[in-house]
C-alpha cells in the first residue's frame, strides 16, 4: 500500500485501551471508494473494536478517523450515522413486530400533517427494495423473514440514510448458500456505486471472492495490507495472522496418561452440523479450538446434557453414561464450567459459599433433608484456601469478586464433587494474566490426578501451550486433530479456517 496515496476513509493512529487490555494499538490504514476492504485477524485481534469505534460506540484513546479529508469524531452512534456510516452487525437490530417498510424508515417516517403517510412509506420502501433487487413485500412483518432477508432490510436502511461507508461484521455466518449469493451480488452493486465497503469475515473463500484489499490485525496491532489479490495466498494470510513471539508462560510438561476415561461418539446437538466424536484419556488435557461460532460450546453443552442432544452416546470409564440433563452428568462425574461465566456459571447475588456448595450439598444432608451448615462452611473454606480464591470470606457476594476468582469458585464447586471428566469452556476469558496462570496450574493438577480434561479457548497460543492434544472444530464439525508437538499456530489456524486443509 502506498502511504502517500490518499484514501476516502482513513484510520490514523487509532488506539483503544480497556482496563488492563490494549485492544487497539495505533492502527493506521485506509479504505478506498469502490472497493471491498477485508479486515482479518484471530478472535480478539481488534476487528470488532475498530468497527465499534467507527460506529461511535467506543471513543478511541488516541488517533482520529478521517473521511474525505475531513477529520471526524463520533461521540455517539447517531453522529456516526449522520456522517454516512452504516454497520451491519452479526446480530441484526430490527423491530421484529413491525413491517419491513417501518424498519427501513424508522426515525424518518414520511408524514402528511400529523399522520404517517403510509402510502408514500410503502412506495418508497418498495423502491429501495427493488433497487437492491430483492423480492420482499414492504408490508411483511419482519419476524416472518429469514435472517438473509433481514440483512437486506438492514442494507436498505443504510441506503436510505445515504451511507457512503458500509461495514459488514461476519455477515454470512447464519446465511444459506443462496442468501450468500444474493448478498455478494448486492455488495458488488454497492461497490460499483462507489461506496466504501468494509468486510469482516473468517471465511477465506469469501474474502478471495469479493474483496479487493485485505488488512490483517494481530493482538490489536496493524500487521499489513494486501492490495494485490492476485498475489496473495491462503498461507500468506495465515502467516500474517499468527507469527508472534510468546514466551512459555504455560509451564507445560507431559503427564502420565491412563485408559480412555471419556468417550463421546456421534453426538449431535443444537449448533452442530455433523456428529462429533472425542476421546480423552485419564490424565489427558485435550484442547478444543475453533473460531467463534465453530460449535465448541454447543458440543460441550450437548455432552454435558445442558442442551438436548439428538443423537450419540457418552461413555465414562467404558460404561455408557445416559445423560439427559446436567444432573445426570454431574452424578456420573462429568462436569462443565460454562462459557459465559456471568450468565451461566455463577449466581451473582448469592454468596461464595452457596455458589461452591450448590451441587455437592446434596450428598451431605443431615438425615437426607437438612442442610449441613458445618460441612458447607468447612467445604467452602477449604476450596477458598486450596484454590487461593481472593475473598474476605465465604459469605461474600459473588458480585464483588474479580472474574478470575469467580472462575475459581466454579472450579471449587466441581472439585467438591468426585469428578472423572471436566469440560472447561473458555475458563480464562477476560481474566488477568496472574489468575490465568493459576487456572493453568489447577488444570494440570486435575489432570495429574487422572481426570480427563477438555479445554476450550479462543486464545490460540494458550490452547497450544496447555493441551496434550488439540482437536479443531470448524463450522459445526470436528475437522482434525494435532498432537502437542506437531501443533503450530499456523497448522491449527489453517485447520480452523480453510476447508481444503482437512
Amino acid at each position, binding site marked *: 500500500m502506498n502511504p502517500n496515496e490518499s484514501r476516502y476513509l482513513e484510520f490514523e493512529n487509532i488506539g483503544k485501551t480497556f482496563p488492563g487490555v490494549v485492544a487497539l494499538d495505533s492502527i493506521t490504514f485506509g479504505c478506498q471508494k469502490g472497493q471491498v476492504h477485508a479486515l482479518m485477524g484471530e478472535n480478539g485481534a481488534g476487528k470488532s473494536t475498530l468497527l465499534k469505534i467507527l460506529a461511535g460506540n467506543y471513543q478511541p484513546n488516541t488517533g482520529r478517523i478521517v473521511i474525505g479529508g475531513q477529520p471526524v469524531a463520533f461521540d455517539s452512534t447517531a453522529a456516526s450515522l449522520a456522517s454516512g456510516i452504516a454497520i451491519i452487525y452479526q446480530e441484526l437490530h430490527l423491530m421484529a413486530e413491525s413491517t419491513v417498510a417501518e424498519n427501513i424508515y424508522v426515525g424518518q417516517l414520511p408524514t402528511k400533517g400529523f399522520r404517517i403517510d403510509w402510502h408514500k412509506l410503502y412506495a418508497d420502501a418498495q423502491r429501495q427494495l427493488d433497487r437492491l433487487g430483492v423480492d420482499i413485500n414492504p408490508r411483511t412483518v419482519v419476524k416472518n423473514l429469514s435472517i438473509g432477508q433481514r440483512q437486506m432490510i438492514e442494507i436498505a436502511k443504510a441506503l436510505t440514510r445515504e451511507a457512503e461507508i458500509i461495514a459488514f461484521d461476519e455477515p454470512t455466518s447464519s446465511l444459506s448458500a443462496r442468501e450468500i449469493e444474493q448478498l455478494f451480488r448486492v455488495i458488488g452493486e454497492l461497490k460499483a456505486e462507489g461506496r466504501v465497503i468494509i468486510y469482516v469475515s473468517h471465511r477465506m473463500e469469501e474474502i478471495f471472492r469479493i474483496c479487493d484489499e485485505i488488512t490483517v490485525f494481530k493482538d490489536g496491532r496493524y500487521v499489513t495490507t494486501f492490495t494485490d489479490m492476485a498475489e496473495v495466498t491462503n498461507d500468506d494470510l495465515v502467516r500474517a495472522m499468527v507469527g508472534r513471539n510468546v514466551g512459555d508462560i504455560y509451564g507445560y510438561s507431559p503427564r502420565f496418561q491412563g485408559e480412555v476415561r471419556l468417550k463421546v461418539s456421534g453426538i449431535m446437538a443444537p449448533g452442530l452440523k455433523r456428529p462429533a466424536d472425542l476421546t480423552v484419556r485419564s490424565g489427558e488435557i485435550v484442547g478444543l479450538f475453533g473460531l467463534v461460532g465453530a460449535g465448541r460450546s454447543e458440543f460441550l453443552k450437548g455432552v*454435558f446434557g*445442558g442442551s438436548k442432544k439428538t443423537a450419540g452416546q457418552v461413555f465414562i470409564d467404558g460404561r455408557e453414561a445416559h445423560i439427559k*440433563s*446436567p*444432573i445426570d452428568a*454431574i*452424578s456420573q462425574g462429568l462436569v*462443565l464450567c*460454562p462459557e459465559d461465566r456471568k*450468565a*451461566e*456459571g*455463577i*449466581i*451473582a*447475588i*448469592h*454468596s461464595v459459599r*452457596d455458589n461452591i456448595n*450448590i*451441587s455437592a*450439598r*446434596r450428598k451431605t*444432608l443431615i438425615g437426607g*433433608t*437438612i*442442610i449441613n451448615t458445618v460441612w458447607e462452611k468447612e467445604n467452602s*473454606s477449604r476450596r*477458598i484456601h486450596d484454590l*487461593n480464591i*481472593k*475473598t*474476605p*470470606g*465465604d*459469605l*461474600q*457476594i459473588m*458480585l*464483588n*469478586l*474479580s*472474574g478470575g*476468582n469467580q472462575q475459581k469458585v466454579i472450579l471449587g*464447586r466441581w472439585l467438591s464433587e468426585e469428578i472423572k471428566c471436566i469440560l472447561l469452556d473458555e475458563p480464562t476469558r477476560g481474566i488477568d494474566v496472574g489468575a490465568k496462570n493459576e487456572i493453568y496450574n489447577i488444570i494440570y493438577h486435575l489432570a495429574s490426578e487422572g481426570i480427563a480434561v477438555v479445554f476450550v479457548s479462543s486464545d490460540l497460543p494458550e490452547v497450544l501451550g496447555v493441551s496434550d492434544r488439540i482437536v479443531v472444530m470448524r463450522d459445526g464439525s470436528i475437522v482434525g486433530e494435532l498432537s502437542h508437538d506437531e501443533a503450530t499456530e499456523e497448522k491449527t489456524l489453517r485447520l480452523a479456517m480453510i476447508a481444503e486443509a482437512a
Partner: protein
Amino acid sequence: MSTVPQTPPAPPGRDEAKGFDYSIIWDKYGMLLVFILLFAACSAFIPNFFSWINMKVLGMSVSVVGMVACGMVFCLVCADLDLSVGAVVACAGVVTAWVLRETDSIFLGVMGGLCCGLFFGLLNGFFISVMKNNALIVTLATQQIARGAAYTICGGVPIGILNEHFYMLGDSDLMGIPTPIILTAVCFIIFGFLLSNTVFGRNSLALGGNAEASRLAGVNVIKTKMLIFALTGLVSAFAGIVLTSRLTSGQPMNGLGLELNAISACVLGGVSLTGGIGKMSTVVAGVLILGTVENAMNLLNISTFTQYIVRGAILLAAINLDQYKQKLRRG
C-alpha cells in the same frame, strides 16, 4: 471489578476498610426494626391498641394472609409469582364445606380442600415449569378457573357447615392463643425451615438468582418449580379451610385480592421481585407491618376507602426500598 486483597476467612462485610458496616444490619433486620418502631408508636398513641384483646384481633387478621405469604415467598424468590392463591382459598373452602355437607366427615372435608389446593398448585407448576409459560398469565388463568369452580360448586350461595367439631379449627384457643394464630406461626416455622435449611429452599433461591446457572449446576428446575407451586396451593387451601371454619361456611367470594396483599407483605419483608433473595423472618415482619397498619386504621376509625389508598402507598414505598437495597448490595 476490583480484586479484594487476600485475607484469611473473616466475618462477612461489604467493605472491611471502613470497619463495621451498618448497611448489613439494615439489610438484615431493617423491616423488623420498622415493625418494632411502628408497634411502639401505635401502642403509645392509639388507645386500646396495646391490649390483649386487640392483639388477638391483630393476630387473627393476619393469619390468612400470613399462611398464604408462606407459599408466595417461594414463588417470588424463584422469580415467579402466584396470583391464584386468593381464589384457591375460596375454592378449597367451598370444597371442604361441600364435602362436609355431603359426608359429615371432617377428615374427608379437610382432605377434599387440601386436594383442591394441591390440584391447582400442580396445574400452575405444570404450565410454568414443563410448558414454560409465563407465571403471571398461568396463575391469572387458574385464578379465574378456581374462582369459577368455587361459584359453580356452591351455585353462588355460601355452603353452611353444621358439624360443630369443625369450628374448632378456627374458633378455639390453646393457652389463650387462638388456634389460627398458632397454625400461622407453625406455617411460618415450617416454610422458613424449608427455605433456609433444605436443598429445595436453597434451589428455589438459586433459580431466582440465575436460572440457567442453577440448571447447569445440577438444579432440577422442573421438580423444584412443581414443588413450589404445589406447596403454595396446599398452604393456600389450608388457609381457606381455617377461614371456612371461622366463618362456619364455605364462601365463594373469600380471599378477593388476597394475592396482592400477600405479595405486598413479601415485598415489605424484603423479598426481591427479581428473585433470589428472601428470608422468612423478615416476611413475618412484612405481614405484621401490613396487619398493624390496618388494625391501627380501624381503631382510628379511618374509612375502608382511605385504607386502600394507604395500602397502595405502602406498597410503592416498599418496592422503592427494595430497589434501594439492591443498589446498596451491588455497590
